[in-house]
């Protein structure tokens, strides 16, 4: 398992760059991960989504689907795609420091 230094912290990630221990995450780490995903600055709306993802992961052990995000975080689908261009569920999971969502079969 590769280890990276992000925001002066040593952090384990999987082959695709998803953090393997979500407890190592903080806002500084999120900012670096966001830049790597092409998101220059995190605003309040981003943070609502990231916090929802982390809460969901903590209770369910997996990231939420986009449908669940929309329904329960209150951020509409269209906005999710604007906030995290190119795939909100995956991208937001990466920046939120949780494992890659199992998603669909």
């Amino acid at each position, binding site marked *: 398992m590769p280890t990276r230094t992000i925001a002066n912290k040593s952090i384990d990630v999987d082959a695709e760059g998803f953090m393997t221990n979500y407890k190592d995450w903080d806002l500084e780490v999120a900012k670096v991960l966001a830049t790597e995903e092409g998101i220059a600055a995190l605003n309040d709306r981003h943070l609502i989504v990231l916090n929802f993802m982390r809460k969901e992961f903590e209770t369910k052990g997996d990231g939420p*689907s986009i449908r669940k995000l929309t329904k329960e975080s209150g951020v509409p689908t269209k906005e999710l*795609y604007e906030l995290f261009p190119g795939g909100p569920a995956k991208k937001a999971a990466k920046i939120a420091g949780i494992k890659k969502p199992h998603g669909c*079969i």
Partner: protein
Amino acid sequence: MKKFVILGAGTAGTIMANKLAGVLSRDDWSITVVDRDETHHYQPGYLFIPFGIYSPRDVVKPRRDYLPRGIEVVMAGIDVIEPEQNRVRLQGGRVLGYDFLIIATGARPVPAQTEGMLGDRWHKDVFDFYTLEGATALARRLKHWEGGRLVVNIVEMPIKCPVAPLEFSFLADWFFTDRGLRDKVEIEYVTPLPGAFTKPKASALLGDFLDKKRIKLAAEFATGSVDQGAKKIVSWDGREIGYDILVTVPTNMGDEAIARSGFGDELNFIPTDKHTLRSKVKDNIFVLGDATDLPASKAGSVAHFQADILFENILDAIDDRPPGAKFDGHANCFIESGFNKGLLIDFNYETEPLPGKFPLPGVGPFSLLEETKMNHYGKMMFRWVYWNLLLRGAELPIEAEMTMAGKRR
């Protein structure tokens, strides 16, 4: 007298009714099965209807003919399940109490979930083939079509039989080649997944098939709306794809009755233990088939494997023992690839589809992850197997638990 109630008499509910009727003594148990209508549809057959290979007659049979004698069959809509009271309210007012409940209410396409899908051109230029009405309307349209852009689209995962839209695309390539129209038809496959399928090895292989058959792939396209006037689908992030005929697989959801009962997830699927198939709602409720929220394929073959496991666990539950059998996510799907050939994939929660021979290691007669004529015969034989063996809960020569024998990594 103890009461067993099964909700839904589709693939899963019918199998379970047959299995349980065989072992539960009528002196001690009553079995009641509920479904909303009298006809059982062989849904895998919908795939062949648009191309005139099957007609509605081939896929619709009387439901009661496949249910065992000596049980009560109630034809009524399920209104709401009340786990705390151990009872189910039916539309029309009847209330059924139970000691054990199996929910097998399946999944269905819900086109209304997508903005613009149910416009004036629904079943005129925009079709689904996951319902008998959609598949027959599409058959009429394709019969006289002279060519243009055919877009095959999955709106959102999960869907039942996730290979069906690929099969549809392969068959369309064959159908238009056969009619001498292939050069006038552009086929594009539009999916929210990163590639042709969910599992990496199969996805790469099926992606090559799309190339070979000159079917364009648009991946990671999450459909947001349909613009029937401009004849295009628009993704949530603003990409647009134009069509002359759109064949879509709408969002698949569990039944409204699950939402009304208040325990479904965001798609009305029921939280279920992925190994024991016991619901997370209450210990005397079990869930089978497409109605579960399991990370397994939603397919008839899966419902069949699950039924073997659930049958054992229910006998345990009746004896007040913890459920002993574990479902491993086993799925086994024939993939029709056109020109009288087919593929076969076999996989579970842990192991992705691998090449090899099936079901007899080294012998077959079917080949895994390989295109053969024999696999096509398997697919066509499945209809007979479904009506005559599978629904009756008979033993098939395939174990519920996936095996690695005969497979190559």
